């Protein structure tokens, strides 16, 4: 037989591993800062770059794309070569993948604090960076598929299926959710509006969790858990069912992020049913992971690597039981917009992704450096501190989530809201937020211990840049000895044909997306239009862009759900037709502060001015950051016509006259806001940013009241 000798590339694995360790600390530190800002608002530092609205996306992007992204590439580049018995397809592509991905992360770390954001959760990066992501992802996919096609191993092990599903689906999700029309170098408007934008965003958002945080890590679990425990996978049958059921079902579940919103009922129900069903394949995977340790449980006591992995898989099981629970409409009615969701995602991020990454790194470093782990004891300390940190993180905010959710819904015996002032509910949960920060601190300390341990491990050994291996060429291998079943080889056959496999995966993930999104986009009856709803005036539009820039959507929803507790607090519930000109939608997913969809006309203009200058002026003990720069900065009005033209191309009915007279229209509205401010004893220049923001806030949710914004001059359009 023709035996070939080749070398596995460990340099690229080390590069991604180091990036993982670095970004792990950066991402969690940003999270810790954001957590502390929630009970200590001074930590917003009164600068635009460090306010919660900008730090929060920095944290989520750093953890998801920088920490988990690099962790995923570390594991894939290590395991894929060994499972395929082949070096990566192209070293050049490997390094483009590494430097490209990390350059994108640096770009995110610069642009997000600058307020350059699309505001769509986990897809905040603006269009030039989006294009770079697409290019780097294609590079990764080509490298992945190229390696698989050049493998010396006939069958593709289950981990590789998960890698393929990740590559294909993330590409589809990223491209479709990021479709936007540029209106400047770092400004764009989503091509979708309102309800459609919300559905596409959460189809993306949910499946970013599924195919970025879950499937690649399941692949890593199926490789590193057997490796670390030196046991074969418990059931390969179960892994096949796990894979196909998970890949098929996950994609349908997105609408559970939009229960009781203006999304049509059929889409909500579909999302809920598929989410509940998802528990089956998820638990199939979890049990397959845990049962792989059968006969090896004694090792778990000794080996920190296995400890991390067991907790990771258990956290996966907990999060995937909780997810379907939260998708049930009646549970969601209480949990949505509260800290409960944050607790849920952190069980996944800290437990599943974090601990699996740590376990993998502790296993990998001694092998990459041909040595032993510097200190097993220190790794055990990391494990216990990390676990304690996780518990201190999630338990208090479960309590705070349920507490706040119940307070929002509590009526007195006379039928009035018991906690009519939203701020009461915020203040009540502050002690829980403090405890959460303690948990976060412990988790960060654990990562620092890991830095020390892995650094010392690397120092004590010698880096193995390439590992030599031998295997016969695929063409030289004899055909599989098993007999055909019913005339064909079933899954064995499929594992031998990666391209067909990839096509089938693509079909599986597209079915759900197409059935849900295409009708939503095309069938007009899904979004009943409301004649009274008009496009934003030029000044309101710029105000809305400021709202996006400052990340207000991180804490304020714009979606009043049809519950009495919400209509009493905020006003009329929100209708799908009210958002038809909202590119992008700004429904939000968390209410750290109150909903703002009906805030228009609720307070005088001067209230908003004083509130933005220092929220405690109007709301003592408020935890909202101060926005003093809005009062002094001049509004950039040069961009308004380009933005209106861009929106017109997306279907917003601005006429030529509207665009031509934009400046005139804007000046008139600015003047009216200034006059209103005077009534409230506030002197302000009309050309400041705050004026535009006030105009936008006062417009919110007023169209259906029959009296458009108090200060809004008429547009010529329909």
């Amino acid at each position, binding site marked *: 037989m023709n035996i070939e*000798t080749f*070398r*596995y590339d460990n340099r690229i694995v080390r590069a991604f591993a180091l990036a993982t360790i670095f970004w792990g600390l950066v991402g969690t530190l940003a999270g810790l800062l954001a957590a502390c800002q929630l009970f200590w608002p001074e930590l917003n530092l009164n600068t635009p770059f460090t306010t919660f609205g900008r730090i929060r996306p920095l944290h989520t992007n750093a953890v998801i794309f920088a920490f988990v992204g690099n962790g995923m590439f570390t594991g894939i580049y290590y*395991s894929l070569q*060994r*499972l395929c*018995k082949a070096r990566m397809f192209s070293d050049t592509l490997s390094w483009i993948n590494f430097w490209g991905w990390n350059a994108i992360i640096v770009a995110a770390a610069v642009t997000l604090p600058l307020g350059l954001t699309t505001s769509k959760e986990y897809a905040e990066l603006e269009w030039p960076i989006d294009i770079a992501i697409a290019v780097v992802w294609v590079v990764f996919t080509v490298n992945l598929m190229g390696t698989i096609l050049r493998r010396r191993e006939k*069958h593709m*092990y*289950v981990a590789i299926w998960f890698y393929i599903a990740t590559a294909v689906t993330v590409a589809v999700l990223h491209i479709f959710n990021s479709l936007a029309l540029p209106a400047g170098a770092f400004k764009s408007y989503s091509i979708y509006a309102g309800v459609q934008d919300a559905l596409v965003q959460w189809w993306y958002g949910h499946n970013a969790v599924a195919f970025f945080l879950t499937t690649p890590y399941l692949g890593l679990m199926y*490789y*590193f858990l*057997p*490796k670390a425990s030196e046991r*074969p*996978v*418990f*059931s*390969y*049958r179960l892994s*096949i*069912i796990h894979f*196909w*059921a998970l890949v*098929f*079902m996950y994609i*349908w579940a997105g609408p559970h992020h939009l229960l009781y919103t203006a999304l*049509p009922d*059929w889409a909500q*129900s*579909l999302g809920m*049913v598929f989410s509940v*069903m998802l528990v089956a394949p998820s638990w199939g995977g979890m049990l397959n992971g845990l049962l792989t340790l059968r006969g090896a449980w004694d090792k778990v006591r000794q080996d920190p690597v296995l400890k991390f992995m067991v907790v990771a898989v258990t956290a996966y099981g907990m999060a995937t039981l909780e997810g379907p629970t939260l998708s049930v409409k009646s549970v969601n009615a209480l949990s949505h917009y509260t800290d409960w969701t944050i607790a849920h995602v952190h069980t996944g991020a800290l437990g599943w992704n974090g601990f699996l990454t740590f376990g993998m790194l502790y296993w990998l470093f001694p092998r990459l450096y*041909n040595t032993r782990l510097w200190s097993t004891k220190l790794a055990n300390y990391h494990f216990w501190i990390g676990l304690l940190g996780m518990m201190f993180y999630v338990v208090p905010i479960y309590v705070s989530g349920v507490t706040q959710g119940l307070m929002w819904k509590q009526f007195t015996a006379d039928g009035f809201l018991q906690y009519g002032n939203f701020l009461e509910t915020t203040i009540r949960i502050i002690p829980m937020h403090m405890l959460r920060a303690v948990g976060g601190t412990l988790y960060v300390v654990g990562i620092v211990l890991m830095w020390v341990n892995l650094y010392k491990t690397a120092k004590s050994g*010698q*880096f*193995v*840049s*390439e590992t*030599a*291996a*031998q*295997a016969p060429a695929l063409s030289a291998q004899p055909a*599989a*000895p*098993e*007999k055909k*079943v*019913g005339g064909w080889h*079933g*899954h*064995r056959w499929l594992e031998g044909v990666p391209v067909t496999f990839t096509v089938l995966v693509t079909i*599986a993930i597209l*079915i759900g997306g197409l059935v849900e999104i*295409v*009708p939503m986009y*095309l*069938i*007009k009856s*899904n979004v009943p239009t409301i004649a009274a709803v008009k496009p934003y005036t030029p000044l309101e539009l710029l105000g809305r862009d400021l709202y996006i820039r400052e990340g207000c959507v991180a804490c304020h929803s714009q979606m009043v759900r049809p519950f009495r507790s919400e209509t009493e607090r905020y006003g009329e519930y929100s209708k799908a037709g009210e958002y038809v000109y909202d590119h992008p939608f700004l429904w939000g997913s968390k209410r750290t502060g109150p909903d703002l969809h009906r805030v228009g006309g609720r307070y005088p203009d001067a209230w908003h001015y004083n509130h933005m200058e220092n929220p405690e002026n109007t709301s003592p003990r408020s935890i909202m950051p101060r926005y003093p720069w809005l009062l002094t900065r001049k509004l950039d009005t040069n961009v308004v016509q380009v933005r209106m033209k861009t929106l017109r191309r997306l279907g917003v009915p601005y006429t030529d006259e509207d665009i031509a007279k934009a400046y005139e229209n804007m000046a008139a509205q600015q003047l009216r806001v200034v006059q209103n401010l005077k009534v409230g004893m506030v002197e302000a220049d009309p050309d400041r940013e705050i004026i535009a923001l006030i105009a936008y806030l006062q417009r919110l949710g007023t169209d259906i009241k029959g009296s458009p914004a108090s200060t809004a001059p008429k547009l010529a359009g329909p």
Partner: protein
Amino acid sequence: MIRNVLEHIGGIERYGILSILIFFACFAGVLVWVILLKKPYLHRMAAKPLESDSSETSPEETRHE
């Protein structure tokens, strides 16, 4: 033309049931497929991550930096 047809597509209420049916058909297919797989193949595949080490040659042949 296609857009026009889709815009006025009827029976949206049946989408839910249709989706569940598509899923169960696929699920049943995979189940049958998996049951028909042979034991030796399944055992060999389940041990694949462990086996891949054996192809690596002796440490002397590896490259150090």
